[in-house]
């Protein structure tokens, strides 16, 4: 999808004023953290596993070239094909070619954030191939022409009415004409509609949570089973995976599985954890005849060896955004692209450029909750700060902010000047506030005073009083 991250402030403002969205976000904030906490309370080894997960990912990245080559060799040995794509264009083209060669008209899709990243659906549609999302949330979004707002529960921002509307508008063509309200009825109707698609699809496209170098396998995790019907029924199975999903062994994947569901939804394990290795074997009564893996770079190889390398550890659990108070206030669409929340704030500037995504690493208080819950210890605030450093170097922050901070730093580096100026400033503010103890408005400080009072200074600075001998005086 085309990024609109530059419009972050306006979109955030709108999100804050959207009552339906705010209700949905309230549910997210109430539900996810407590479910995660309950799951990890049952697993005493969870923190040790986090360290393990971090170390495994760092090892994989430090040998990423080797493991990608191993993965490719194993895939080919099992009769699959590997396609390498530097960017969206190459990735979409590879998928299109695979689809064309088998004369595909309609493809089913399991949930894949990378496919959003490369705008695959639009590309296929423009080339006469109908993509059908099968993850329930993604399917609903596709009907509404919307993009995901969360990487695990993509339609979290929607309420039941909106889903009823979407089904009512689009399911008539399948013979369903009744407006449904009950979640169970809605889900059942989607089940029936999508069943036909699963069976009729020419190609099934999934993402990959992991690619295993040892065996040439790709792994998907779902609760619905849609990924499985996608990777099983059509003649061709295409996996779209970014390059950093490669991990060495099945044993290593076990470690990540223990971290992933607990961090994401508080489940012990997702209902369906599926390992796909090559096409069907000669004796198999079902399964695809072709197995393709499209390895997508799209800016990730450039992160290796840089201060952003830790971001490549991400296993896409979404714990960071579930705990982020900023995401919790504005939801995912405000971030303007595929990846929201703290992980989006770090990854998006890398993939679409800091000029476009500059707001994202700035819209953070560095409260640190994200890093505290990340299952692989990604230092998210630190990397957001690195983006701020890049912006500073390139003079991308607003002039007024730069000048204000430069002024502050100039004075702070000169204690004597600092004392004089701050002494005057607090006296002025105190005078403006009178006896009230606060200022309701202050020119140049409307960012503060539009929303809260500014506590007034006591009148003289600590240093002035200390140097006059107060409180035991200068010792």
């Amino acid at each position, binding site marked *: 999808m085309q990024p609109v991250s530059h419009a972050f402030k306006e979109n955030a403002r709108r999100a804050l004023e959207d009552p339906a969205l705010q209700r949905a976000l309230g549910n997210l904030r109430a539900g996810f953290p407590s479910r995660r906490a309950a799951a990890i309370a049952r697993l005493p080894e969870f923190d040790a596993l986090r360290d393990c997960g971090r170390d495994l990912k760092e090892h994989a990245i430090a040998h990423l070239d080797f493991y990608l080559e191993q993965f490719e060799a194993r895939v080919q040995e099992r009769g699959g094909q590997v396609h390498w794509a530097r960017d969206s264009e190459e990735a979409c083209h590879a998928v299109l070619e695979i689809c064309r060669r088998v004369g595909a008209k309609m493809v089913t899709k399991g949930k894949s954030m990378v496919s959003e990243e490369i705008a695959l659906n639009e590309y296929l549609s423009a080339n006469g191939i109908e993509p059908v999302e099968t993850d329930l949330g993604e399917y609903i979004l596709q009907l509404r022409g919307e993009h995901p707002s969360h990487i695990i529960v993509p339609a979290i921002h929607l309420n039941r009415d909106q889903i009823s509307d979407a089904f009512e508008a689009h399911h008539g063509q399948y013979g369903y004409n009744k407006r449904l309200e009950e979640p169970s009825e809605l889900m059942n109707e989607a089940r029936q509609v999508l069943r036909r698609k699963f069976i009729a699809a020419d190609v099934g496209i999934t993402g990959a949570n992991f690619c295993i170098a040892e065996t040439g396998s790709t792994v998907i995790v779902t609760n619905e089973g849609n990924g499985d019907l996608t990777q099983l029924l059509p003649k061709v199975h295409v996996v779209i995976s970014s390059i950093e999903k490669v991990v060495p062994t099945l044993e290593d994947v076990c470690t990540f599985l223990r971290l992933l569901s607990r961090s994401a939804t508080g489940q012990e394990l997702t209902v369906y954890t599926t390992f796909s290795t090559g096409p069907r074997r000669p004796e198999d009564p079902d399964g695809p005849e072709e197995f393709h893996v499209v390895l997508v770079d799209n800016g990730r190889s450039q992160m290796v060896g840089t201060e952003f390398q830790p971001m490549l550890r991400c296993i896409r659990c979404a714990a960071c955004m579930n705990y982020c108070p900023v995401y919790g206030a504005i939801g995912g669409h405000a971030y303007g692209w595929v990846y929201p929340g703290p992980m989006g704030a770090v990854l998006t500037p890398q993939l679409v450029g800091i000029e476009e995504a500059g707001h994202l690493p700035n819209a953070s208080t560095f409260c640190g909750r994200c890093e505290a819950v990340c299952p692989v210890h990604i230092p998210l605030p630190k990397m957001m700060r690195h983006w701020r450093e890049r912006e500073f170097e390139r003079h991308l922050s607003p002039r007024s902010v730069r000048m204000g901070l430069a002024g502050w730093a100039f004075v702070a580096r000169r204690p004597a000047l600092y004392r004089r100026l*701050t002494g005057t400033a607090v006296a002025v503010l105190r005078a403006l506030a009178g006896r009230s103890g606060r200022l309701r408005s202050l020119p140049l400080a409307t960012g503060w005073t539009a929303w809260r009072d500014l*506590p007034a200074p006591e009148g003289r600075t600590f240093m002035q009083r200390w140097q006059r001998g107060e409180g035991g005086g200068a010792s």
Partner: protein
Amino acid sequence: MEPKPSTQPRVGLFVTCLVDLFRPSVGFAAVKLLRAAGCQVSVPAGQTCCGQPAYNSGDRRDAQAIARQVIDAFEGLDYVVAPSGSCIGMLRAYRTLLAEDAAYASRAAALAERSFELTAFLFVLRGVRSVPARFATTVTYHDSCAGLRELAIKQQPRALLASVEGLELREMADSEVCCGFGGTFCVKYPEISNRMVSEKVQRVAASGADTLLAGDLGCLMNMAGKLRREGSALHARHVAEVLAGVTDSPPIAEP
């Protein structure tokens, strides 16, 4: 580090710019507490700011310059103590900020080793278990983010507050959730900040306490400013004031 109650460590007070400018009573409260804990307290004149505004805005050069200034100002003291978790977090970050600076790298590391937030210093390093203060009020405590997540400040202020005569502590829901201050964040993204602080003060009110306490003045000014704007009857103070028994000055933002 083992508590050494029998010696008189030389403690440099890092006042913090917010305390210096807006609420010196917190600084005096800190001095009183440190002296009562057997410390010799000085306030190096060469201090201004910890450098967080520059650091968090990506201005490494200015942050490094300020860091060197702080290191110089606090040379020769046994400890550096501040009534702020975020400022001490910043002082400890000098270690990585100046890692490439041949002249300052080891001094920055040494500073990090001897810098402490006030309540942690009192409780852990000085072995203080009770204070003689009296404050017959129901309070609730906000866990400022940097103090909590960078310095593990959680039990120390609560343990000390438990010894204050007449004081009752009522925990609020989600005391560990950010109040929305975040330094420049609150003025760069004011609507989001406002939403965060609105929800925070709702939870403060719902706790049943009548006074909000915390260990960071930035957070307190943010929350107190919101309380005042909403016409709330709740009060806000820095935890140091309560522990030192210097509650004669008005609460934050009040007449």
